[in-house]
């Protein structure tokens, strides 16, 4: 085909918005949405797998609940009351449920976001995505959006079953502030997820890193026990991750009788973690991206 004077071989030239412009932001938001839609289409093409994944968080929560109930022979723990400093014994079902509900979203950050790019490599579409003018982060964020929606469905199932079988003592009026804390936690987790996706790009078989980090975070977060049972050094390390302040803040709004936390301090703590994790995640992603492309190891397994 003969080239015209613009070198477009007769095709209509396409201009891509770049830089910090409204048009570029809109284009990236569209890319995030389309990436999310794509993952939903793939997931819904395997309905059995979708159902299993949606029920999985409930299945993983049950052992914590049953074990807790057998340990104390009921649902109120005086020992936990002592650790938390509440007026009345603590309802362990509500305590564990609120903790494990948040833990599911850590899985979102680590597994879904962390493996978004690696998954494209398995599908054989990574190189094609890399040559598009869209930011690679949009792909990761699209996966984050999908995974957050998916996890919300799982939490809905968890809530319905646990509420129906065991009953939950939750403060309805505390949901709104708890959701605000939750949103702040999610931003920091997204930063964490971006970091993991960079590591997966670099290490290829990043599942060990992801599984390892998830296991460590599970120990460091007050999911099924208060931080008071951890050694002092470990307790201090847990403050680096958003789950600890977020869980304490959310429980103070959601659980009746839970000691009130310094809400301002929790908000500030989470805002600082948001900024730190997002910046750190993007920075590491940026450098790994350059390094991988320079080495030419993008398509390597």
């Amino acid at each position, binding site marked *: 085909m003969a080239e015209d004077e613009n070198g477009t071989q007769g095709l209509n030239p396409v201009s891509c918005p770049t830089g910090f412009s409204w048009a570029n932001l809109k284009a990236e938001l569209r890319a995030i949405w389309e990436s999310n839609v794509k993952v939903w289409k793939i997931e819904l093409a395997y309905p059995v797998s979708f159902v299993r994944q949606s029920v999985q968080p409930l*299945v993983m929560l049950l052992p914590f609940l*049953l074990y807790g109930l057998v340990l104390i022979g009921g649902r109120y723990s005086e020992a936990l009351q002592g650790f938390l400093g509440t007026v009345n014994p603590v309802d362990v079902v509500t305590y564990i449920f609120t903790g494990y509900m948040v833990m599911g979203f850590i899985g979102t950050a680590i597994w879904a976001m962390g493996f978004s790019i690696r998954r494209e490599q398995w599908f054989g579409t990574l190189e094609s995505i890399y040559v598009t003018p869209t930011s690679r982060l949009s792909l990761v964020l699209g996966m984050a959006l999908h995974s957050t929606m998916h996890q919300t469905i799982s939490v809905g199932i968890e809530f319905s079953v646990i509420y129906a079988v065991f009953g939950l003592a939750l403060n309805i009026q505390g949901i709104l502030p708890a959701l605000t804390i939750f949103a702040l936690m999610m931003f920091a987790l997204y930063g964490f997820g971006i970091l993991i996706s960079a590591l997966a790009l670099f290490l290829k078989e990043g599942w060990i890193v992801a599984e390892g980090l998830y296991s460590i975070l599970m120990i460091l977060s007050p999911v*099924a026990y208060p931080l008071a049972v951890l050694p002092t050094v470990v307790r201090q390390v847990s403050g680096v991750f958003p789950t600890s302040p977020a869980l304490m803040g959310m429980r103070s709004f959601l659980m009746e009788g839970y000691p009130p936390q310094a809400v301002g301090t929790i908000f500030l703590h989470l805002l600082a973690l948001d900024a730190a994790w997002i910046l750190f995640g993007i920075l590491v992603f940026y450098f790994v991206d350059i390094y991988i492309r320079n080495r030419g190891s993008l398509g390597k397994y």
Partner: protein
Amino acid sequence: MNLSLSKDLTANSLIVWSELVKNMKFLTAYPVVFIFWTIFPIFWFIPFLLQGQAFVGGLQSPEFAKLAGTPNYVAFVILGGILNSYVLTSLYGVGESMRREAYQGTLDYLLSSPCNKAFILIGKALSESISSTFYALTQLVVCVLFFGIEITLGVVMPVLLVIILLILGLYGIALMLAAISLQSKQAHDLAHTLENVFYVLSPVRYPVQSLPSWAQMISSLLPLTYALIAVRSLMLLRYDITAVYYEILLLFIIDMLLIFFGFYLFNWMERRTKKSGSISHY
């Protein structure tokens, strides 16, 4: 006749040995994976130990003893975690092994070779048993050193017997899984579902008596249930092996049934897949 039998035996042993060597080479080629499976199962039960401490305020729970027979929930959870790791390695190691051969592009060659495929699977199961036992032993040593688990020499042989029986039963299930993966290609969801069934319905973290009666009925069909009851009775409650003969007998019967159906299903699926020409389909 005798010469042919002896030749067959040598050839089949060679298949098992070659498969064993191949899998061991894979294992040692990825030292990080090896270290992961040795260390991280311990991390998975630590939250339960901390939860126990927070809920009970100590290392003994009288309420727990009412159902479990022992107030020592730490040892209960640790033994549960270690034996449960055999479930993970058998389901994902052996159960998905045929699928892995498909990914590696070697499944067609394996299935078209003139040997009995059962011996290939025995080789895979054997290598998986060796690595799983190594992981379990390492975890046990760590737990003896850091969590105060006590082992007496007298229980080593009976516990070993129970573990061998557990492995046999689990590999019967893994054979069925491998057979299904030949036909349906994706057995990953089934493996996950089975893992969840074992995890929730067997007494891995809590005694079976805490489950509703319908769940206890399903639990009574799982080999892990009897293995856990027997091992805990021997190690924690210090019972004699004669006290757990019933559990061992039931475990043995379940093993026989699972292995028989496992091999039958695998051979049937292999013939079916060959006829349909869908071996190399993804």
